[in-house]
């Protein structure tokens, strides 16, 4: 088993319309999809954790050296690149992590069309593979 971080940012996928302009039923369908997916991953014993983050407007940056830490608003990078949320899954294989990422990417938008949001898949540092089989290393 290996843990993977699945990252979603604010890139819109194939639908440019911001969510404020969707029909309420479409927003509900979108949220219900996430809820159902998370329930499925909980039931399968694969979901470790997951969070949606508050909007970048609330983000702070902290830098510190020898003196007092400096706190500023920001970062003011391209909005689309900001982290929107993440899930940690513990799965049998990278293939399974990618399969789950595809399910996240497929979340429906207006008209039930899959959003095709890009999902980054990052493996979490964990055990080394084949440790016992390679005693010399």
């Amino acid at each position, binding site marked *: *088993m*290996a*843990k993977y971080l699945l990252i979603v940012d604010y890139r819109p996928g194939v639908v440019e319309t911001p969510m404020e302009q969707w029909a309420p039923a479409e927003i509900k369908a979108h949220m219900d999809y996430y809820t159902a997916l998370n329930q499925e991953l*909980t*039931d*399968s*014993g*694969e*979901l*470790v*954790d997951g969070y949606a983050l508050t909007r970048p407007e609330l983000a702070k940056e902290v830098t510190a050296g020898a003196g007092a830490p400096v706190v500023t608003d920001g970062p003011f990078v391209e909005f689309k690149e900001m982290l929107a949320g993440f899930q940690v899954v*513990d799965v*049998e294989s990278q293939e399974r992590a990618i399969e789950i990422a595809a399910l996240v990417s497929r979340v429906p938008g207006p008209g039930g069309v899959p959003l095709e949001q890009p999902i980054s898949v990052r*493996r979490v*540092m*964990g*055990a*080394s*593979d*084949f*440790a*016992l*089989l*390679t*005693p*010399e*290393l």
Partner: protein
Amino acid sequence: MTAGPHIEGLLRELAPQVLGVLARRFGDFDAAEDAVQEALLAAATRWPVDGVPDNPRGWLLQTGSRKLLDQVRSEQARRRRETLAALREAPAGAAQEHDDTLTVLFLCCHPALTPASAIALTLRAVGGLSTAEIANAFLVPEATMAQRISRAKQRIKASRVPFRAPERSEWAPRLRSVLHVLYLIFNEGYASSTGAELHRTELSGEAIRLTRTVNRMLPDDSEVAGLLALMLLTDARRSARAGPDGQLIPLDEQDRTLWDRRLIGEGIALLDAAVARGAVGEYQLQAAIAALHDRAGRVQDTDWPQILALYGLLERMTGNPVVTLNRAIAVAMVHGPADGLKLLETLDARLAGHYRLDAVRGHFHEMAGEFAAAVRHYTAAAARTTSGPEQRYLTTRAARLQAG
């Protein structure tokens, strides 16, 4: 558990036996498993106060049966009477106890389960660890682990695998699954037993304990003995394997006075007896290699030609490219790094992108005095490893060469 090491050990030993009896009597593994956990909990709270009963197994059986009966009673009165009658059977003898533990192991390590499910179920049902302990060892929330165990039980139920010892004809492959699961549990604990994840050594300890149990039950099986020897001979080096800050120390730099001589002695004795019985398998070969390393009091005393020969046998037996990678290390130690590098070329396709291939290349280049190439490969390996301690080791190795 706060029951003290003696009671805790006793409970772990008895748990699969009791589960075996209850599952067979009631024909419901899932319900039996819950009942056993409740009985174990009751024992862990009461025995330290009231003292261990004269017949602890009987006590657990009775308590577990009572818990099961509570469920059955509310469901079906007739079935209750039948079960009560069954409970009046004479207690089973020693051979029966062994069969029960083995049967539970065979069930938990059933090929219908994924390795992760089999591991979780084995630790819970045979290892007698609580769900929280297993979750802690695998660094996932307890609810996640509980779901995984419950899914594994459902899968067993759905596949209608009967609760009985496998037929003689399916014995060998089923035992192989059991040994593989125990191997994976040990590896999981050993692979990450440095620094922040030190608490995971519980997994290695539990794997050793379970393999000891299987070895006691099947003393004539040389692969069971081989696996136990491999675990002991590997675990003997544990305290030398990590530095004070959790950094990984490779075999050739370890302080060999820290190796556990008692474990090494036991492992070698087990291995010698197993090899003498014939039918050499892959666990015995791995154990034999571990033994050669353990026997060398100083790194320069290592019998590399013998290790090379054993890797050759293991490679023919398994066809595993990682074994070939190890053989390349032995080749380099016997014939020099150029020959080692040549053998690695045959692995480029099969281990493409695997960091260990880069790590070993870096090592060979370092041996050959080709430091720039060594740094390049160590850096590539560090970028691809999945383990924190290994990444630190490889990065430090590259940095050391660059500092010249």
